[in-house]
């Protein structure tokens, strides 16, 4: 029996919406990549009915914390050469834009937040203030995964389970059951909770994947020269979709863009960047590193399953499989990890 009827849950949800913004998986009809398909993605919702509980999103939820484009500074001086040229940081604006937001996340994406936190709040002991402002205003509601979706390998990556959430809201046949772990939300779910419901976490990777994904350890630069990367040079078109769909990619570029409304004002924006694009490493004087697409694939895959872990102690890839879902060339992250393991095993012999 659900704790709440459909009707009561709607009332609760509307109460939450008075105090919070809610960002959750939604269906955008007709917006899919292929004609007549829908796009499942993250967006702000205004009703409970909009939330899609049982499908994987195409994009990750990271944009709520790390927007695709974000103004870091505003320059109002046309003549920056003057002694009084000035830059005003846009943190106050960031604060206004981000009311406390409830994020509906699956276990893998909750684990991905740890990667974002590590990069933006810890790496090099510098804090990114734009991220921090947003992060402080995030509350997490868990979405359960009784079974893995196609291309998922969270069980292999140990991200299939989590306790890091405020509320678990389970959709049942005739209503919803609730587990509240955070007192901040107790008042929204008054005492008619009869028994606490436990979330189900999948215990097997995607049914189409027969081999468990093993995270390779202690990779040296020998593998950089291996022909396994040549295949990616031939297949990958360096579009960077894997980066834009990934919940843990955090690289950004910085651009100055003229303000649309105020002539003469320049906004210094940061914008998502992709290591799969040739210009990612371009230096003044046009020197580039990783000219071949295969080398860029190697750079990305080894970061996800090896380099980040070596620096921070836990794997960057959470096994959500979105990079596989979005790849127009059907390149599989899992298969590339398998190949790395095969090659390193051969080298050991």
């Amino acid at each position, binding site marked *: 029996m659900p704790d709440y009827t459909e009707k009561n849950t709607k009332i609760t949800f509307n109460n939450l919406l008075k105090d919070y913004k809610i960002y959750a998986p939604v269906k955008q009809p007709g917006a899919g990549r292929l004609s007549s398909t829908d796009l499942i993605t993250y967006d702000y919702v205004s009703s409970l009915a909009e939330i899609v509980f049982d499908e994987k999103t195409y994009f990750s939820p990271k944009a709520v914390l790390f927007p695709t484009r974000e103004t870091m500074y505003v320059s109002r001086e046309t003549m920056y050469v003057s*002694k009084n040229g000035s830059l005003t940081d846009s943190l106050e604006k960031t604060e206004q834009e981000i009311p406390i937001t409830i994020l509906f996340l699956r276990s893998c994406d909750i684990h991905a937040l740890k990667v974002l936190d590590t990069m933006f709040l810890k790496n090099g002991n510098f804090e990114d203030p734009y991220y*921090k402002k947003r992060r402080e205003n995030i509350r997490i509601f868990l979405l359960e995964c009784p079974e893995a979706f196609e291309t998922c390998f969270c069980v292999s990556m140990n991200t299939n389970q989590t306790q890091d959430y405020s509320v678990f809201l389970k959709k049942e046949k005739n209503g919803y059951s609730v587990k509240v772990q955070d007192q901040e939300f107790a008042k929204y779910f008054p005492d008619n909770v009869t028994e606490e419901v436990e979330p189900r976490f999948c215990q097997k990777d995607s049914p189409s994947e027969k081999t468990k994904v093993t995270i390779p350890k202690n990779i040296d630069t020998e593998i950089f020269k291996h022909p396994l990367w040549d295949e990616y040079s031939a297949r990958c078109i360096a579009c960077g979709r894997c980066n834009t769909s990934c919940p843990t990619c955090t690289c950004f570029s910085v651009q100055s863009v003229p303000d649309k409304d105020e002539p003469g004002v320049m906004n210094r924006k940061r914008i998502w960047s992709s290591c799969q694009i040739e210009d990612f490493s371009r230096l003044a*004087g046009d020197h580039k590193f990783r000219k071949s697409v295969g080398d860029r694939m190697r750079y990305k895959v080894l970061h996800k399953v090896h380099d980040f872990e070596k620096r921070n102690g836990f794997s960057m890839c959470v096994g959500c499989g979105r990079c596989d879902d979005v790849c127009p060339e059907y390149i599989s992250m899992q298969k590339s990890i398998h190949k790395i393991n095969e090659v390193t095993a051969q080298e050991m012999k």
Partner: protein
Amino acid sequence: MENSYNSKPAKILNITKHTQVEWSFLLETTIEYTPGQFVFVSLPHVSEIPITISGFRKNAIEITVRNVGTVTSELFKLKVGDAIYYRGPYGELFPLDQYDNEHLLLIAGGSGMAAVKSLVEYYLEYSLKNNKPKLKKLDLVVGFRTPKHVLYAKELKKWGKNSDVIVTVDKHEDEDESWLGGVGFVVDFIKDIQDLGRNSRVVVVGPPVMMTNTVRELLSYNIQEKNIWLSFERHMKCGIGKCGHCRIRDKYVCLDGPVFNYIEAKSLID
């Protein structure tokens, strides 16, 4: 909360024009003597870029800039007295304590000279005045493309009085007959260094190919890997370990470099 990306204004105190496209700007700051580090230079209406600190003065630093891009071309429109913005300094500096009382060989190619220059000045000027440990011997090998591309010509001449300085160019045209330096790559001049031995300390800064070839040659002279240091140049957007562009394997050039000991650097393959 202090914004890690905040820049401060700094007045331009002097501009030195080495070539048409390579100028040094002296900026009023309180940055301490930290050879090897870099700053992020920012023009509010344009953008910001990482630049090595090429020299330190009392309450000032010098940056040497080549006019090649959006920010640098705007920078070249500025005059003495104008203000630019900067943040930093960032990155690891050269491990000066490991050079005390040792033979130090500095090898630089092109704009790599900027990073090396701050080290030369440290030993030939700063450490003398401030009673800091000295070197046993300082050697400098610098290479430029042609005589027209030579940076810090005046300084190189001055330093030559107190230490061994070899200046070479890759090639020179007929009209450069007045050229008195060497012709060839820096790597070809390592054989001319006196007293080069196992314990010599060597710093190599320049384009990637030049650094690879130079280190290979140095190792053939039995120089120990642990006694070689390189300074890396990579694309950067933040300087504080966030933007991800300068990452090589598990290292960030902005945080863990730009100066790397060769033992570490040899496995840093992009």
